[in-house]
């Protein structure tokens, strides 16, 4: 077993202590009445361009991303870089769709995407489908943030047997739960500033220091096996790795802003302007993510995968240990502490936002819609606070009792599920043409088909679609959302002919400033 790296551990704990303090005092930041749901759960919609940049950046580029993308580069090579085109394509979507969504939500005091769908299409069952999809897709995502935390705690050499092994994770989660409960979205917003500064410092240090140690990029890429350096050129009658790469990037881009935590982050902005400015400023994170993906190759070149001192870590965490191992290999202990704190805190920010987003969904779109129709503001906010605790507890229990493999598989399914809300939410922002029942049937078929596809390929991201003699391997989410959309388009005129009417409580002017 590795020994505890005391210097790194102390730096890690000091930074963790600092953000804990910050999380609690955040309740007083831009003070609002935390007994109202939009204050607790959306920070009162008053974050300007800069805070939104930190918050949404900290929200979307999660700890798991920083561990898993380089790990994929380390293990599978070039395909991991799909994260870069993916994060290039999300920003036009952010720019075009979300200022409109922000305006209509602000106007009608909508807190969630399901609130919007309820208002736009007047169908509580369609809103329920959006709600359940959001909650179910978010849960494994929270669980995966814990995996990021587990990996860095293991990297610090903090190990134990039985319950003691899980103790650090449990403590970190109690802290997270407590400050989220007391401060709401203000806590991750303030912590995100610290986290993002640490992540930038770490990423740039890694990209400057490690190549110097390893003798330059030419040497690094010479150490990468040719099969990993580029995408495999497809054979005859198939789009091969090219199709997988492009559909993974496009499908992930279409899905991203449908996740409840993305929508919560964006709706907390103070204006449509703040969102549009961020579409131009957030690519800063994409650039850093690209740099970090290269770190997977640094790990290959540094040979950490075969070094005996990291064998235990790789055995426990698989390729997810590539980045921590490289940092331990290349950096002085104190900086290892900074880098690991960046990843660890990087897990808490999205986990907090995700639990708030899931709590908002339950409170608004299940409890208020189906159980208690007329809660007071205080009851509603209190309900959300409790639900945020339950959601996090669920994720913690899941990660402690169930093998990580299942969390990863569920998160993959989550991407396939959440994209099925695209016609109702993203297209709903632009048009009321669709019939609500047609959307609901499209959603159901897309969800069922996507789940079946994923299971049939044993939870690989790509499904080998056969079409006219060609094999088109691609991201199941991308294929099934097209199916979903086709069904909605075909059935809408049918339902309209049967006399179906949409009761839209929003008007065109609500979407504009």
């Amino acid at each position, binding site marked *: 077993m590795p020994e505890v790296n005391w210097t790194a551990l102390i730096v890690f704990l000091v930074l963790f202590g600092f953000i804990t303090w910050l999380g609690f005092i955040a309740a007083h930041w831009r003070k609002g009445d935390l007994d109202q749901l939009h204050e607790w759960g959306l920070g009162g919609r008053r974050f300007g361009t*800069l805070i939104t940049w930190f918050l949404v950046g900290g929200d979307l580029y999660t700890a798991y991303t920083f561990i898993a993308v380089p790990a994929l580069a380390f293990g599978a090579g070039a395909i991991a870089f799909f994260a870069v085109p993916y994060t*290039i394509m999300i920003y*036009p979507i952010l720019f075009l769709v979300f200022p409109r969504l922000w305006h209509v939500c602000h106007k009608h005091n909508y807190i969630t995407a399901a609130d919007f769908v309820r208002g736009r299409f007047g169908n509580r069952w369609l809103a329920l489908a959006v709600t359940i999809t959001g909650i179910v897709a978010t849960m494994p995502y929270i669980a995966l943030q814990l995996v990021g935390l587990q990996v860095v705690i293991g990297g610090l050499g903090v190990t134990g047997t039985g319950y003691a092994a899980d103790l650090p994770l449990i403590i970190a989660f109690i802290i997270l739960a407590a400050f989220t409960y007391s401060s709401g979205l203000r806590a991750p917003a303030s912590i995100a500033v610290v986290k993002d500064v640490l992540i930038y410092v770490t990423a740039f240090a890694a990209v400057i220091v490690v190549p110097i140690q390893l003798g330059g990029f030419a040497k690094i890429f010479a150490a990468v096996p040719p099969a990993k350096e580029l995408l495999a050129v497809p054979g005859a009658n198939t789009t091969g790795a*090219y199709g997988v790469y492009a559909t993974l990037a496009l499908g992930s881009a279409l899905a991203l802003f449908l996740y409840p935590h993305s929508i919560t982050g964006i709706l907390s902005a103070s204006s449509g302007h703040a969102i549009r400015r961020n*579409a131009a400023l957030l690519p800063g994170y994409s*650039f850093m993510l690209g740099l970090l993906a290269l770190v997977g190759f640094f790990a290959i070149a540094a040979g950490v995968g075969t070094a005996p001192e990291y064998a235990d870590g790789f055995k426990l965490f698989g390729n997810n240990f590539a980045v921590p191992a490289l940092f331990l290999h290349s950096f002085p202990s104190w900086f290892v502490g900074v880098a690991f704190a960046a990843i660890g805190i990087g897990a808490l920010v999205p986990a907090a936002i995700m639990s708030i987003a899931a709590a908002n969904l339950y409170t608004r779109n299940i409890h208020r819609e189906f159980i208690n129709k007329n809660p007071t503001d205080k009851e509603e906010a209190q309900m959300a606070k409790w639900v945020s605790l339950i959601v996090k507890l669920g994720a913690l229990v899941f990660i402690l009792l169930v093998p990580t493999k299942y969390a990863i598989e569920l998160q993959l399914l989550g991407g396939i599920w959440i994209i099925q809300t695209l016609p109702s939410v993203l297209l709903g922002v632009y048009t009321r043409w669709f019939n609500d029942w047609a959307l609901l049937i499209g959603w159901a078929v897309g969800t069922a088909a996507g789940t079946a596809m994923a299971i049939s390929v044993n939870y690989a991201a790509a499904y080998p679609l056969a079409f006219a003699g060609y094999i088109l391997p691609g991201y199941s989410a991308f294929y099934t959302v097209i199916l979903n959309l086709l069904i909605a388009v075909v059935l809408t005129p049918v339902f309209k002919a049967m006399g179906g009417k949409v009761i839209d409580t929003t008007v065109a002017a609500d979407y*504009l*400033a």
Partner: protein
Amino acid sequence: MSEQSTNRQSEKHSVWSWWYLLFAVQFLAVLWPPFYNAVEPSLNGIPFFYWYQMFCVVIGAVLTAIVYFATND
């Protein structure tokens, strides 16, 4: 952190602007992998595949900024 006041200024936005077509560039630039799936020309030892896509991040940000200023009257 005193952005609130500036963010509250009037926001006028028409539904469609031709400037939005600039966004197509960043989609086309990365959605066709055969175009950039190559080692050469490498930059400072980094294969084309990698530096090209990183470069596209910068291009995407610049195009988005152009659209922002062009449509922000």
